[in-house]
Structures are given as structure tokens and as C-alpha cells.
């Protein structure tokens, strides 16, 4: 899975020599006399037996190894994730992601909320792609209730969703650079985000957790401010992206830190459930917008973009290509936008007939899907969300052994996980 290049260990330890020195100094051996799970204490966990084989494997220390606990508060874990990294010198030998520091029980709360309220609860999930979070439940509930949104509503949905994708991807470029110590591209990414977020707050009334979608349409029609901002934004969006690109893409240091790092083959990526831009960067042309077309995507012209590398650099280039693709899609959507209502006639409290519905969309991080079961009541009986970054995170422990600590952060940033979505 990792490439064949063997990285020399700059701080390699001579195990026999260390054991001898320990004996001479009267220190205990690095392995505890009890044996296996020396690691728990050193990362601040109370001593307890490991529950699973894998846990025993991670927390058993060989001679010369130590556990470094990164997180839950760490500058580059993208929120409150914890990575227990087993290192030998600077070389990572194993990684154990510990999740749940942001688990808010959204699924359970949604099962107690009415169908309209569910669309507010899902907002803070993947907080960089809020519009996508609402899109899949809206489609699923429309299937359950048997209502279709009017065409103009579908076009507005596609428009805001693509706008959201642009700023999410441009932030990813910044975060990737930030995790390698480049402090400027993130600012350029935020300039892009600020423009788009202002635009979306003009149409939805909220700046970050938009709550714009409704079952059977969207909340508001486009207004003058939104359209005028869209017009001016179109002129300099590419300039903003290019500013980050100029700092990064051809930068020799950036290239040497991304090319060949965290290489994931297409087969492995599918086995691990990686989806979205990360999967397409490994050469697999799987895009839900083409594979299972929803909304108005069948009417739009676009091709599925793929990269061949499968490494961090390919994932980065894939994001840039998708920004351009999204802008191309936005142009088409604006051209074809029909007139008409933006909401179907839907009762205040929706009570669908008992049934099941599955809706998947392509979020900036991959396949985001919702599985909703109705029992005829005013709230979903079961509401399940599959978050792409949660599943993509499984690739990190597979990719990192043999790499250096610095690459752990850089590769993780190239997968662009958002902890709100990972932990739900």
C-alpha cells in the first residue's frame, strides 16, 4: 500500500545497546513486567486490559518504541480527534485514531425531531459542507412523503450546493498547507469562503449553518443581493484560488512533501470505503452525481475527473480540478435556471406513510447518504447518516506505518476530514 521507498530512520535506536544501558543504569526494561499493555498509562488512559486484538497490538510496546498522544486538542487534528501514534524515533509504526470527542448524538436527536426539524439538526454535522448535509435528508424525506420539489427549487439547490463545494475545497488547500507549516494559503482560502458565505447568507439568512433546504423545496427564492454578489464573485473566484495555487502547486518543498506520500491504490480505497475526491484521486471514476444522478445533475454537462497518483498531491490537484468543475456547473445552472415556485405544497407537520428511503449525494468529502425509516408518525423512526470523512479516516492507520510523524499530519489533511461529520 505504501510505496517502496524506504525512509532511513534519522534517530534510529540501537536496541541491544539501549537494553544494555538500561541494565547498567538499573532501569527497568522498556516493556513492563506484566508484559503487554504498557502503552495505556503513557497516553493518559487508566490501566485496563485491552478489549480487542487490535488494541493489544497498538498498545504493546516493543523495545525502543513509545506512544505519542496527539489530541484531542492538537493544532492539526482538524478538531477534536485523538491520534495515538506509536513511534520509533521519528518513524511511525502504528496509528490508532480515537474518535468521539465531538459525538453529539445527532442521529438519536433526529429520531425525536419532526421531519422539518431534522434539517436543522443535520447542519452542524459536516460543518464545512452544510448545504450538502441538508440535501440528502431533503431528498430522502421527499421520497418518503412522495412529493417533488419544483424545478426552480432543484436548480437553486444545485447552485448553493456547488457554491458550498467551492469553498470547502478551497479551505482544504489551506488546511493542507497549514499542516505542513505554510501559514498563508489558509488565509486565501478564507477569503474565498467569506465571499461565498456572505452570498449564501444573503439567500438563507444564516452565515454558517444555513438551514436553507425544506422538504419539498428551499426556504427562499434568490434575491437581488445574492445575485449581485454571485455576479461579482464569479469574476474573482479563480483569482483567489490561483493565489493559493501560486504559493503551493509548483513549490518544490510542497511537492516533495506531497508526491508519493500516503499513496492509496484504487482497489485499497474501495476496500476501505474511501469515496469522493479521495477515491477519484486514486483513479476510480465514482461520483454519485453520475453514478446515481439526483436533483438536476442529469441535465448538466460534466465529466468525472480523476487523477492517477493516489497520493497527497493527487488529492490536492483533484480538489483544484473540482473547484473548476463546480464553477463550470454553476455557470450552466445559472444559464438554465427556470422561473416558478421554490416550494411544493407541504403540510406543516409531515407524516409520511410507513416506508424506507435511501438518498445519497456527493458531498465535498465523498458519498454522504441518508437512510430514513418512517413508521407513519411525525418523526423518522430511524435516521441514519453515512458520513464520508468518518469512513475515509480508516485509511490513515493503513497508510502511515513507515512514515514520519510530520507526514501523519500532512496525509491526514489531504483526506480533509471534518470532525463534526466524523463524530456526528
Amino acid at each position, binding site marked *: 500500500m505504501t510505496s517502496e521507498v524506504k525512509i532511513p530512520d534519522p534517530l534510529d535506536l540501537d536496541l541491544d545497546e539501549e537494553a544494555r544501558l538500561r541494565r547498567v543504569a538499573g532501569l527497568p526494561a522498556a516493556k513492563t513486567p506484566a508484559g503487554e499493555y504498557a502503552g495505556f498509562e503513557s497516553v493518559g488512559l487508566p490501566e485496563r486490559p485491552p478489549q480487542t486484538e487490535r488494541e493489544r497490538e497498538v498498545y504493546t510496546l516493543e523495545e525502543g518504541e513509545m506512544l505519542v498522544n496527539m489530541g*484531542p486538542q*492538537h493544532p492539526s487534528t482538524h478538531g477534536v480527534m485523538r491520534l495515538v501514534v506509536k513511534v520509533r524515533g521519528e518513524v511511525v509504526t502504528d496509528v490508532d485514531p480515537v474518535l468521539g470527542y465531538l459525538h453529539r*448524538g445527532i442521529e438519536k436527536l433526529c429520531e425525536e425531531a419532526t421531519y422539518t426539524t431534522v434539517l436543522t439538526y443535520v447542519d452542524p454535522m459536516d460543518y464545512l459542507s452544510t448545504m450538502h448535509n441538508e440535501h440528502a435528508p431533503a431528498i430522502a424525506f421527499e421520497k418518503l412523503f412522495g412529493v417533488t420539489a419544483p424545478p426552480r427549487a432543484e436548480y437553486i439547490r444545485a447552485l448553493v450546493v456547488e457554491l458550498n463545494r467551492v469553498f470547502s475545497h478551497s479551505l482544504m488547500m489551506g488546511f493542507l498547507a497549514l499542516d505542513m507549516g505554510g501559514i498563508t494559503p489558509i*488565509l486565501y482560502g478564507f477569503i474565498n469562503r467569506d465571499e461565498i458565505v456572505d452570498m449564501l447568507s444573503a439567500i438563507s439568512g444564516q452565515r454558517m449553518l444555513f438551514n436553507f433546504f425544506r422538504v419539498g423545496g428551499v426556504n427562499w427564492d434568490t434575491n437581488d443581493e445574492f445575485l449581485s454578489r454571485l455576479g461579482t464573485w464569479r469574476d474573482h473566484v479563480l483569482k483567489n484560488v490561483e493565489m493559493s495555487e501560486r504559493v503551493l502547486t509548483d513549490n518544490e518543498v510542497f511537492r516533495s512533501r506531497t508526491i508519493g506520500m500516503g499513496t492509496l491504490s484504487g482497489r485499497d480505497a474501495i476496500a476501505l470505503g474511501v469515496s469522493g475526491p479521495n477515491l477519484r484521486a486514486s483513479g476510480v471514476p465514482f461520483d454519485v452525481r453520475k453514478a446515481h444522478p439526483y436533483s438536476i445533475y442529469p441535465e448538466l454537462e460534466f465529466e468525472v475527473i480523476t487523477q492517477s497518483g493516489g497520493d497527497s498531491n493527487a488529492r490536492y490537484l483533484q480538489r483544484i480540478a473540482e473547484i473548476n468543475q463546480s464553477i463550470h456547473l454553476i455557470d450552466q445552472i445559472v444559464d438554465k435556471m427556470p422561473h416558478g415556485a421554490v416550494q411544493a405544497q407541504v403540510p406543516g407537520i409531515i407524516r409520511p406513510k410507513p416506508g424506507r428511503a435511501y438518498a445519497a449525494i456527493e458531498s465535498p468529502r465523498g458519498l454522504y447518504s441518508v437512510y430514513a425509516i418512517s413508521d407513519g408518525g411525525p418523526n423518522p423512526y430511524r435516521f441514519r447518516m453515512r458520513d464520508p470523512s468518518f469512513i475515509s479516516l480508516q485509511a490513515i492507520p493503513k497508510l502511515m506505518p513507515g512514515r514520519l510523524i510530520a507526514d501523519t499530519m500532512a496525509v491526514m489533511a489531504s483526506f480533509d476530514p471534518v470532525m463534526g461529520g466524523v463524530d456526528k
Partner: protein
Amino acid sequence: MALKTTPDPQTAAEPSMAEADRVLTGGTPPIVIPDQAGDDPILAEFGMEEHPQGGFHGLLEVIPTRADIVLDLIRANSLWPLLSGLSCCAIEMMSTATSKNDIDRFGMFPFRASPRQADVLIVAGTLTTKMAGPLVRLWEQMPEPKWCVAMGTCTTSGGRFKRSYSVVQGVDRVMPVDVYVPGCPPRPEGLIYGMMKLQELVKQRRGEWSTYVDRGVQRIDWEGDVR
């Protein structure tokens, strides 16, 4: 800039006259001079005695207090936040440091990654029960003087996750809070406004050392039932 005050149950049971005075005079603790002066031979030489609250009064009090006013002005203009975001609000917190909302103008910029070097803990986002312990540990690792800003409704009260089984219903259940910034999430301007309110709070303190130690907020042990 609400300083949330929870009286200690033991002392609250018997409000003394001094306590009543404290309430009436708006929080300034009365200075009670003990009867027998000159307990400390060294202080007695200067005609001074020990302050009932452990400090000094008389001539010696003047100097550190005046210095503290200057120090507080300095502190108010150099508040380094801890680079710690919990969830959605973290993005807006980063947004306050970006080109458009540049919080660096007020000297609040270098987001320090290590709690040992930070002054302000901006709790940005939903605090879950699993995260409560680590967050309190971060807070305790920060050196005095330190301040806490609760950003967002989830942090101030639980917000939309009020009923959740894994969310702490307000960060003030586990640590003292100086400024509450409501909003879901607050706009960057809102956070900047909150930080400027915090600046006022820092300046107003006028070198009262007691506020370092006792913020008037009862500390709740997070290891138990934190909800």
C-alpha cells in the same frame, strides 16, 4: 461579560454583615484592620501590618496596585488565544483571524498551540462529556492570569443539543467563564465584540489580585455528573 456568581453553599448559609456590606457596596470587599497592630516585626518597623486578605495595605499596597493597573492594560492588549476549536464555531473563530476580520489588530493574534503560553481559552463549539475532561485539563494547564470565552449557544447552554445524551449543557458547568458570546455560531464580528468586552473586563479589574484566585465561580468537579 457576565461574571456568573454561584455562592459557596457553606458560606451562603450564614450571610454575615461583612457579606451584606459586600453586596451593598457592589463587590468591593471591606478592608478590616485587625485590632492589634504590628504583629509582624518587620512590617511594624514601617508602621504597617498584615492585610487581612493576605496582601499589604498602607504604603506597600500602593506600589503593586499601581503597577497592576499598567500590567492589566498591557494584558488587555495582548490576549493570546489557545488554538483550540471544538466544532463548528472553530471555523468562525479561525475566520476572525483572517484577512476580513483580522483580530490581530487588537493584539489577539498569535494563536498559541500550547496551553502554557495562552491567555484566553475560547471554547468554540459543542463540549461533549468525553471532551470535558481534556478541556478542563487544558484550562488548568494555562498559566494565570487567564480568561475563558464561551463561544456559541452549545457552549453557553447546550443549545440545540440540549437533550443529547453526550453533551455538556454549558461549559460553565466545568470551568469558570468570563464572557459568553451567543450565536449559532456567532459571526466573527460577534466574537471580536466579545473579545473587546473581555478587554474591558481585564482593564476594569484594576489589579485586584484576589480575582486571580477566586473568580466567584464555584468550581464543579467534572469527573462526576457534569450535566
